[in-house]
């Protein structure tokens, strides 16, 4: 499940949920929030990510912000924990609506 052994060392991204939309967001390299992990700023240490975040206006739009560990793989930035992988990609099961459409 976890990828930390197979890949080179990574770092930390700052993530949380959007205040209005509730969707997953990351602190981007341009200091704005982004929905795409590939655009997220990667920091060496968790504290760096948290400090950089509090200095941005992104903080006002974010709920429950925290630093999450990431690594680099073939697809770019990859979350280390299963929870963060699910937050990034959505539930690991087929959604009922999707099943219905396929029929």
């Amino acid at each position, binding site marked *: 499940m976890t990828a930390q052994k197979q890949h080179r060392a990574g770092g930390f991204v700052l993530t949380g949920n959007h205040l209005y939309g509730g969707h997953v967001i990351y602190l981007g390299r341009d200091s704005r929030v982004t929905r795409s992990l590939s655009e997220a700023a990667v920091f060496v240490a968790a504290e760096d990510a948290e400090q950089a975040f509090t200095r941005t206006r992104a903080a006002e739009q974010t709920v429950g912000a925290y630093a999450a560990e990431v690594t680099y793989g073939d697809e770019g930035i990859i979350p280390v924990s299963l929870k963060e992988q699910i937050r990034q990609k959505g539930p690991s099961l087929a*959604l009922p609506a999707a099943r219905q459409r396929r029929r």
Partner: protein
Amino acid sequence: MYQYDNFDRTYLQQRIDEFKAQVQRRIDGVLSEEEFKPLRLQNGLYLQLHAYMLRVAIPYGTLNSRQMRQLALVAERYDRGYGHFTTRQNLQFNWIKLDDVADILSLLAEVDMHAIQTSGNCIRNVTTDHFAGAAAGEAEDPRITAELLRQWSTGHPEYAFLPRKFKIAVSASDKDRAVTAFHDIGIQLMKSPAGGIGCRVLVGGGLGRTPRMGRELTSHLPEGDLFHYLDAVMSVYNRLGRRDNKYKARIKILIDELGIDKARELIDTEFHLRKDRLPGFNRALKAKIAADFSLPDFSSAHPHDLAHDMALSPSFAAFVRQNVCAHKDSRHAIVSVSLKQHGCPPGDATARQMRIIADLAADYSYDEIRISHQQNIILPHVPKSQLASLFARLATAGLATANIGLASDIIACPGLDYCALATARSIPVAQQLALRFQKRKNEQDIGPLQIKISGCINACGHHHVGHIGILGLDRAGVENYQITLGGDGSEQAGLGERTGPGFSAGHLLAAVDTIIDVYLESRTGREETFIACYRRIGMAPFRQALYSTPNADADRVAAKIAS
């Protein structure tokens, strides 16, 4: 069903207006997230992994077709076309935006529904027997007391900021279908020898990190004293319950620390203070509510022998045997509609399915629907003469899965696929297990078996009271599943015992197979159920089979795959 009056409707509208203003103040920065969070939680709004989640109350699990259609509309308009029925008879929408919540609450209020107190550190939506009013042998319909409890607890100024959440369940039957022993307060209603209704009150039951069975506070309380008594319990809990540690804040820990005798003494003092100083219970309100819950007019139904219908169709016969229960009126039956189609997430229903259920309730069940804590749907009053017709329509809609009470009728919390608290996934485990039973066609042979899965220690999937309980944990970043055996949430309540070390996701299915194989080999005959067999033979044979050799787990997986 309870009929909303102007007071109820005005109250709902006020709460919606209040919430709109709170959202605006949050957006304006007047309220911090820390201040806003308890307010949104008391309106049923969580922030989960992917979005906000709105938990809609279905008080005591009862709703009508109009309400069900409105839930379908919300699912389509504001969610992704489905909802999730929970183990507390609620419905959760998983993909909600904060900006939409006030509009959703307005749509719900149109049909006398809401999301009030489905979350937060307050008295939560009250649950009861999903067969209430339909099953024989009840002291009275427990929904009458449940509705009184809803009114007593809704917006109660003293109990909106408790140490922790507070769950109450009511039952009025010898058969405990409401798991009353595992609630902060469990109320068991019974007929008083002297006439009227009496209440047995249990306190401090619960699952989670520290599972406890409810302890008896009083064996017999006159119903007119119930609310002063509950006020006394709440006052003691609110003042003395621990607030220093989230995991020790439930009333079960306070009862542990005080001891039940000391707790009873404190509560009795508070109770008598109220009884002496405050006005008595409003019996006229109860009479009005009781009238709302009187049975539908059954006069058009006539006796019907199902044997002929069953002889004509083996699939109908199987459905009747598994999903249909006796009604207290011999012309009717109680029908359970399984939301556990093999391979589907337990408790999920699409908007289309909700509308089909609504249509069927209107056509076959006097417009009444129930949600069970087992995450299934009940049509409580179906004339026997129309059962075959109902079955045909359920089958056409793919809703005739005949597995109620069987191994694939699995309870599962949303788990790590949705929930911010979860440590492991639970829905995929339930899906894989159900598909496996379907493939092996052994469910009927196994007989009654309750498998319950939680994705974290908080135990929303009730794993402690599963005959087979599965608890998903995070072990160094990898999902790991502990198994408990012998739990029971019924009137023979008991907590499951852990088999031993947990299993990886890859080995879990084989471990469940092993447990079932031990049962099938050990039972005295088909009439000895899994739980009865477990009680007779104990944990040892199961443990032996699960952990007998160092590589038993891996070997068994290889063998099972090969078979």
